[in-house]
């Protein structure tokens, strides 16, 4: 049985179910209690699970991320929210040096089963410091499992797995998708981490896209007379390169569209994996599309200018033929 719920409801359901399922799971972050999160992602959880399990924190990402690390090593399973993905940088040392590296430098003796989640992405006129997509930052630091959510189905199933996983997981919903609706099973389910999903099958070109860009890619391809295969990586690190490569072996063409900045972004990395390992399966050079190499501006015409639009994606696909 399925029903339609919003993406942000799916996020809240994932946390709710994991709090109910496992006493070791706790949720903390700024404004996660009565306020319910900026997008409603923690609504109702405090009333249901109480203040021991759902805790407001003082305003410091350093404290939130650092405490999550210690709590995880200490034997519980923290789920910690940063209000915007950009704030990964305000907890820079914790996010880049401590959490992903402590299990490694311990020789695997230390376990840090924590999940940090943070709404990412542009499109709401939130400006340069509240709009970034940071999976390229995080993917560059081995030790993080980096997961994005594209649909309500993904959001719930992947978030539940993130919480259950024994690695540090950075889970990135997209704020523009908060109110989008989609089918989600009534019954309990999880989705595998580290596995890409073939969302649409096609023979002519492989388009790799996630979060908002997945939806824009679908919009872009609706009117094209090209048979497009769309792959949603879901987990960016470690990346399921094989599913993408297998698709390119079939289609011979690759377009990677992502909301990370083009310069040193995810797009280049994914394209390079194919160029280095599957060059002779390509009938055309790979096309990479991302945020232009500027900070994300506020004014809507400026903001839309730097984000990949459906038109830019369509043009990118057509340029390969």
């Amino acid at each position, binding site marked *: 049985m399925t029903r339609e719920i919003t993406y942000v409801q799916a996020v809240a359901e994932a946390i709710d179910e994991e709090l109910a399922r496992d006493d070791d799971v706790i949720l903390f972050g700024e404004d996660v209690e009565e306020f319910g999160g900026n997008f409603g992602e923690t609504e109702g959880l405090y009333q249901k699970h109480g203040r021991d399990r759902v805790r407001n924190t003082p305003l410091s990402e350093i404290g939130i991320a*650092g405490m999550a690390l210690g*709590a995880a090593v*200490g034997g519980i399973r923290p789920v910690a929210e940063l209000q915007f993905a950009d704030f990964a940088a305000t907890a820079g040392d*914790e996010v880049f040096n*401590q959490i992903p590296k402590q299990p490694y*430098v311990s020789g*695997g003796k230390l376990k840090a089963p924590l999940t940090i989640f943070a709404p990412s992405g542009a499109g709401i006129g939130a400006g340069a410091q509240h709009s970034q997509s940071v999976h390229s930052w995080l993917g560059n630091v081995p030790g993080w499992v980096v997961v994005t959510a594209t649909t309500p189905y993904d959001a719930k199933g992947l978030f539940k797995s993130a919480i259950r996983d024994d*690695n540090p997981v950075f889970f990135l919903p997209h704020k523009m998708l908060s109110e989008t609706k989609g089918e989600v099973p009534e019954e309990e389910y999880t989705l595998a981490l*580290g596995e890409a999903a073939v969302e649409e099958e096609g023979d002519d070109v492989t388009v790799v896209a996630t979060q908002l860009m997945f939806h824009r890619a679908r919009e872009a391809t609706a009117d094209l007379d090209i048979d497009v295969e769309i792959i949603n990586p879901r987990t960016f690190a*470690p990346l399921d390169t094989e599913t993408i490569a297998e698709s390119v072996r079939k289609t011979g063409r690759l377009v990677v569209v992502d909301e990370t900045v083009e310069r040193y972004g995810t797009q280049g990395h994914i394209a390079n994996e194919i160029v280095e390992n599957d060059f002779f399966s390509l009938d055309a050079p790979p096309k990479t599309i991302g945020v232009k190499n500027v900070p994300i501006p506020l004014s809507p015409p400026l903001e839309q200018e730097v984000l990949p639009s459906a038109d830019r994606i369509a043009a990118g696909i057509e340029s390969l033929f």
Partner: protein
Amino acid sequence: MTQNVSVDDETARQFLEGMLRIDIFEEETKERFGEGEIPGFVHLSGGHEGSHIGMGAAMGDDDWLAVGGARLIGQYIAKGVPLPDIMAELYGRVGGSNKGHGGQMHVSDIGRKLYGHAATIGSGQNPAVGLALAEEIQETDNVAVTTIGDGGTSRGSFHTALVFAAYWDLPVVFVIENNEWAISTPAESLSPDHLSDYGIPHKMATESIDGSDVEAVYHTVSEAIERARNGGGPTVIESRVARLVPHFEGDKETYRDTDEYERLKEEKDPIENYRERLLERDIVTETGIEDMIANIETEVKEAVEFARESPEPEPEAAYDHVYRTPLYGQGENQ
């Protein structure tokens, strides 16, 4: 001035022995590093031995220690990590506490509740708050002790940890080992009279003590742990010590005043002072101390032999421990 001995004779002897163990182990480390047997760089604990042993003795086996500052080896020893595990880790060998993935700055021993170290100075205190939170949620009465140097207290992350610990009144004991030098920057340039004063706005208990006196450290940390165990919340302790060694081996210390340095070596050596104190009160004899030293030298020699004989890691081991695999659900549908 003759100081009293405030602990029983056996405990006093253990304190002296513990400090000597750090000193002898580190002297050997210095030699081995000088001979090129130990990679990376090495920071030694000279002057901090009393602070380390007093703190370690105050802690229960199930209390967490998240070490900070740069004087680390003494703290690992004080938490009970076996010497061969530490030495082999310094050597970067398979038999090391962290299989060579960590080295001198990252010895951790989860079984002994040694969390390890944030080598980016001043980032270990928030994890310590998290460790205390985990203990509270698991309804134990264990506490988390965390150390930091005077330099690290200038990091915002240290102050954030105080905010968070106070917010939930968590069982955390912050020990600031103030040796007056952040490499070459003197702590006296910082505003507070005592660095423990940083706890005052958070309404925490604060103490500033002579950290070169092992007994003072033992009593003060014991009291703070007891308070934390009984729901009394966090404490900030400034343990004032002298740094009687270079910041790291190779530091020429051109910034230090020679006379003052000599005076500190004369007056603030925790081992020498305690040795005299116990001898004066007939708690130990010269022969007893010689035996103690001989036994420790044997232990240290064995630790070096263990490290030398422990294999170098296979290069492929560099890829281990990045992720625990399979990831959740991975491969289940294939």
